[in-house]
């Protein structure tokens, strides 16, 4: 399926919905890059079901890995991912036939579309996270025991590297260090695998679901109807409508491979006067109401505007603002013991908290 400009807008909205973060600009600039190519005459990105590939077609996962410099500041010049895909193909010994985003939320989703338009490579309707996680190794591929490498990396300064790494957790360490040296971020192509392997291990259909979610969010439906439709489509639950009382953003150094000391936002439940707490570190990690955990990693916790049902960012958490806090479940793989060990509350320094009524 060729995506149109409208599809890209829906995809953007869906990608922001599943990854509540500070700023939407990074995603918008990547969408704009895809649009620039399309308006110059290039066909739109091609989104394909995995069954459209031959079993032995090589699929690569692409994504940014950051260390300090926003991509909106040190902007890609446009050859980084092309270089990565060429290096990876050389390392593996055959050409890449399809790409998928490293995360099923936020910028890497739009990145895949921009690279598809630029290179002509189709995007597999799948991803290895089903949401966004901060670390490269927090993927279902890791859970399946698949190797992360070889990994190709390229930076905005024109430097590149091929890493022969098999352990995904080591890949995150090394790539963060490279990102630091390469100027603040690094473009990566990783988890090379046959389409047959991707068919059994990736989270299939995730990108088309984002388009559906985004299309719903951008519709003129009243907020209540949007909530109902999102519940039917993706199991989204509106947990609480609350007014922000206090937002304390903290900056604490974090160790490589770990996230620590999340920031805390306190809200007041408008209906019942309960105390609502959000723990935030890049995205919302945990939701507590009157001290009880109502949702935590790997659940997807996000924000919507109560009036319009539009997606909100963390920037909307200013004192006095009223937001709808909604929760949707992550992919089932993340609720297994192995999945929780890799991406559950303990992996984020949240202790052994479990939300009520865990599935």
């Amino acid at each position, binding site marked *: 399926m060729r995506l149109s400009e409208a599809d890209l807008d829906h995809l953007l909205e869906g990608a922001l919905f599943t990854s509540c973060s500070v*700023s939407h600009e990074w995603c918008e*600039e990547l969408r704009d890059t895809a649009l620039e190519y399309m308006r110059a005459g290039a066909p739109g990105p091609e989104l394909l079901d995995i069954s459209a590939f031959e079993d032995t077609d090589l699929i690569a996962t692409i994504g940014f890995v950051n260390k300090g*410099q926003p991509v909106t500041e040190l*902007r890609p010049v*446009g050859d980084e991912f092309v270089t990565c895909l060429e290096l990876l193909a050389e390392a593996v010994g055959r050409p890449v036939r399809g790409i998928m985003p490293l995360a099923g939320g936020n910028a890497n989703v739009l990145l895949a579309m921009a690279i598809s338009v630029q290179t002509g490579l189709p995007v597999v309707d799948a991803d290895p996270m089903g949401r966004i996680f901060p670390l490269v190794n927090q993927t279902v591929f890791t859970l399946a025991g698949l190797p992360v490498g070889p990994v190709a990396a390229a930076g905005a300064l024109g430097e590149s590297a091929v890493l022969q790494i098999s352990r995904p957790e080591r890949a995150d360490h090394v790539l963060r260090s490279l990102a630091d040296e390469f100027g603040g971020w690094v473009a990566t192509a990783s988890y090379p695998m046959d389409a047959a392997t991707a068919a059994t291990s990736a989270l299939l259909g995730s990108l088309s679901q984002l388009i559906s979610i985004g299309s719903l969010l951008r519709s003129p439906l009243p907020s209540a109807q949007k909530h109902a439709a999102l519940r039917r489509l993706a199991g989204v639950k509106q947990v609480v409508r609350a007014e922000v009382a206090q937002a304390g953003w903290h900056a604490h150094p974090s160790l490589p491979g770990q996230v620590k000391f999340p920031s805390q936002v306190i809200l007041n439940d408008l209906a019942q006067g309960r105390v609502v707490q959000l723990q935030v570190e890049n995205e919302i990690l945990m939701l507590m109401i009157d001290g009880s955990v109502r949702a935590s990693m790997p659940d997807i916790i996000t924000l919507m505007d109560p*009036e319009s049902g539009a997606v909100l960012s963390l920037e909307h958490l200013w004192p006095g603002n009223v937001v709808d806090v909604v929760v949707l479940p992550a992919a089932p793989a993340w609720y297994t013991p192995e999945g929780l060990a890799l991406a559950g509350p303990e992996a984020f320094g949240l202790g052994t908290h479990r939300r009520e009524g865990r599935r």
Partner: protein
Amino acid sequence: MRIGVHLGNERVALVSIDDGGQVCTELVEGSPSDNGQQLDLLADGLKRLVRTWKAGQSGAQVRRITFDVGTLLDAGMAGARQRPPAEAGATPVLVRIAPRPPADRAHELRNSAPGLQRAQIHHLFGGHSAVGEELAPLDLGGATELARRISPGQRIVVTAVGSLTNPQHELAVGKALLDGGQPTEVSYSHAYFSTSFAARERTAMLNSSLTETTARFATELAALCRELFPLARPLVSTNDGGSTSLSRLSVSPVHSLASSPAAKIVGASAHLGHREGKLLIDDPHQPLLGQLLDGLPVVGSRYSPTEVGLIASRGALSWSVPDATLAQWSGPRVHVTSPEAVCALGAACAPVTEWVNTMSTIKTHEEFTAALRMAENRAHARLVSLGYAPSSVRTAESRAEAATFGHPNIVAIRVRAVVDGLPTHLATSPDPPTLASQQGA
């Protein structure tokens, strides 16, 4: 006594507030086609105000006069967009400093702001990392060569990667352009706080397109003030609902482009005495919802003017109000009969404001606290240096701003300091025109 002036497209509104909180309003009708006519209308209105005071035997001295020019600036921009490019004025020349130039046109992101499609864009090697370290040596030779190639009389905007943390490359290129060429103006993106290269560049472009007009206008407004109220401090309203020295209108008019909606929020809240929470301003032309926190409009770090992308200027948050919300609203509401007068009241009430936005490198919580205190002291010191008593200055906001996937040792600090001094109770003059009727919660 303080005076607020709203310069609108159809009328000039003037509001005075004396130390007892007594409010007087004057409206001067007219559809001025240029700034000269605007000034004539303004002078007319000011003289009528003075006559009113004399009739009421008010001998109060005017201490400050604040101009809200947002509506005029916005109308000017809208007019420029509708004119053919050749008539609308030259788009600034853009100089982008980065470790490498874009590999293709798509990565120049020419659709990210109006005017970029036809802009001259020149690339120079250079730029800094998030911690201020050089990513690539600056191509100063290229800058010198560029200075010779750019036609005289151009406005130039210089944007460098990492200039928020280290502006050296922008300044060096700017100097080379000024020394080796004859530009009308060189603007620097690091004057605008944003971690987005595009947002800073866009803001500098927008500001550059406004300065030619506003420089002259600000001078003429200042002259009028000196003539009529020689002891008054001339101020201009800003996008955050505050105010700053009128002289800044010549330098950074972009920070006054959205001042009118912000002034409307401040004026409505002052009229109602509402200091916290949402407030519906029931303007028959454009109902608006604003939000107050401790008497000040809540402010975002960026805002988006019509047809322009997000720009790096702090704007008072406001929302348009659908009919359904208007009908169902049960919170505080001000029914506005004269939107211009509400804006003028807002201008009169707007506190003088200083912001400090900075990126700080920290390793411990103690360093973070120290960086915050330093920013607060800087904001206070700026206001005191403008002549305001230290006891009248307070910190309205002091916090770190969240940053995603950023460097763990770098935090964005945001501090707002304001000068208080508004009477705690306003009494609207019983004479028409009525400013607004009110419905409280």
